[in-house]
């Protein structure tokens, strides 16, 4: 953890009026290692540390903090800045129905997040409709139906035992008609997990987006993902130009450096944190809390 790493270094730098470049570099070396251990992508770490270095070397000596602590303060500020200065809200605008589309890698937590969003929006007085547009994973439709029933939200899905070649794009488009029919104000489209190197599946995601024209497209990513977060996030941004991110499984002990990587390379805000398997374990993302979690 950064605190342990820095303790020795900062101790040695106590009582110095100003930091020399080599002092700053010594602190930054520990910051770099802490960020890599926290799974921040190594290229993102490079640019991040360079930015901090620039600020630290030019910095005025603080009255309250010793120079080493001052570097840490700059790191925290830069980190929180990239992650977002404050929680970014869901922006549903005035469209009716407003469509939210979920996308992400296999197993990242999309279907569960769809249920959570439905519960969250219902609490806020909206009328959601869940759409089961994952037609390939065995029992994915069942899974969403169970979640929908739990929060008393209707689920639009293909007929069970119906056309085995049903098309997710058609199901999603059909949901818009269904929404108008049942008076649903928000449509939440769950999609199949897909990998960024599967061109056909990435094209399907683009096609679904085109068909439903979402006001919010949320990229769901697992907090335990490692270096690949950058490549994956960029590919999904290319395919569905997401407007926000849901970071899942934050109830675990993964440091979650992917949050910094994704925010840095896509410039998109992390809007929600999923903090458990239950549908109420869902909250607005807190950038400051994430910053200290990443730094350890």
């Amino acid at each position, binding site marked *: 953890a950064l605190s342990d790493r820095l303790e020795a270094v900062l101790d040695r730098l106590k009582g110095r009026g100003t930091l020399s470049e080599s002092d700053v570099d010594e602190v930054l070396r520990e910051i770099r*290692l802490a960020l*890599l*251990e*926290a*799974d921040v*992508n*190594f290229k993102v770490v490079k640019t991040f540390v360079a930015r901090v270095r620039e600020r630290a070397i030019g910095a005025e000596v603080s009255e309250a903090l010793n120079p080493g602590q001052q570097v840490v303060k700059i790191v925290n500020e830069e980190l929180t800045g990239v992650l977002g200065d404050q929680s970014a809200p869901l922006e549903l605008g005035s469209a009716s129905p407003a469509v939210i589309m979920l996308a992400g*890698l*296999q*197993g*990242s*937590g999309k279907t569960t997040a769809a249920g959570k969003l439905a519960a969250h929006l219902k609490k806020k007085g909206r009328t959601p409709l869940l759409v089961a547009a994952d037609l*390939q*994973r*065995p*029992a*994915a439709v*069942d*899974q969403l*139906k*169970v*979640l929908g029933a*739990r929060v008393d939200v209707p689920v639009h899905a293909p007929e069970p035992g119906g056309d085995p070649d049903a098309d997710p794009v058609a199901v999603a488009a059909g949901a818009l008609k269904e929404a108008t029919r049942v008076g649903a104000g928000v449509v939440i489209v769950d999609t199949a997990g897909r*990998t*960024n*190197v599967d061109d056909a599946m990435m094209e399907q995601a683009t096609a679904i987006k085109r068909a439903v024209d979402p006001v919010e497209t949320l990229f769901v990513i*697992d907090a*335990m*993902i*490692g*270096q*690949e977060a950058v*490549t*994956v996030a960029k590919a999904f941004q290319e395919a569905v130009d997401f407007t926000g991110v849901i970071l899942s*499984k934050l*109830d*675990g*002990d*993964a*440091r979650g*450096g*992917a949050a910094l990587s994704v925010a840095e390379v896509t410039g998109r805000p992390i809007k929600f944190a999923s903090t458990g*398997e239950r549908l109420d374990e869902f909250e607005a993302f807190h950038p400051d809390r994430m910053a200290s979690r990443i730094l350890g």
Partner: protein
Amino acid sequence: ALFRRGLDEAAFEELEERLISADVGVEATMEIIEGLRERVRAEGVTDPEQALALLKEILRLELGVADRTLARREEGPTTWLITGVNGTGKTTSIGKLAARHARDGETVVLAAADTFRAAAIEQLSSWGERAGARVVKQAEGADPAAVAYDGWQAASAADADLLLVDTAGRLQSKRALMEELSKVKRVLEKGAGHTDEVLLVLDATTGQNGISQAQAFQEAVDVSGVILTKLDGTARGGIVIAIQRQLGIPVKLVGLGETVDDLADFDVDAFVEALFA
């Protein structure tokens, strides 16, 4: 270049970055590169291409020592317990394994001991149907240990060749859930006597948290091997190097996609090559 003695620092940094980018991790990378430095010095390597070849050889040798066979028993159903954190591919991997062994003419029984997650039992049942394996299940919310035990009884009574026990995904930091898993294994073994394999299913995209997963699951249920899934993506799964180094747990199988045939034995050479692709 005429007076250059040995490989320059930039070459080592480049190799370091390639390992870090493959999720090998800072500590393991530093140790591996340190070992490479010694070999480079000892063998007088000056060409970066040669250094890379040497690095691959070092990794192949290190990974090559592990026993990657899947344990079978002589008498009664071979019993494999499938564990791991949420969403890594446990249920899908069981489906693939069931199909592979059923195709080899074996009788396979699946125990749906994930009694918690929405439609988990349906998902496993669907895979069982596909593979021609019997699925032992109870109602959602039933005691997972009881389902595991039931699975053994059914497999044993049917003189089945293989029993695969699916469990719910659980984050390793959740003490009560890890204790539940230990109990599932204990109760399963009341019938089965021992578990032939306890497989940890690990997503290849996982970063350094993979080590903490392996450690915690090893402590809870004595993991004997890893199934590394989603290796068909761009992630290279370098975390398994540290897992084998620190915990002695080898990767036995890899998941290469979402369909029934997308399962393969772990190939050390292919893995090492892919690390530097």
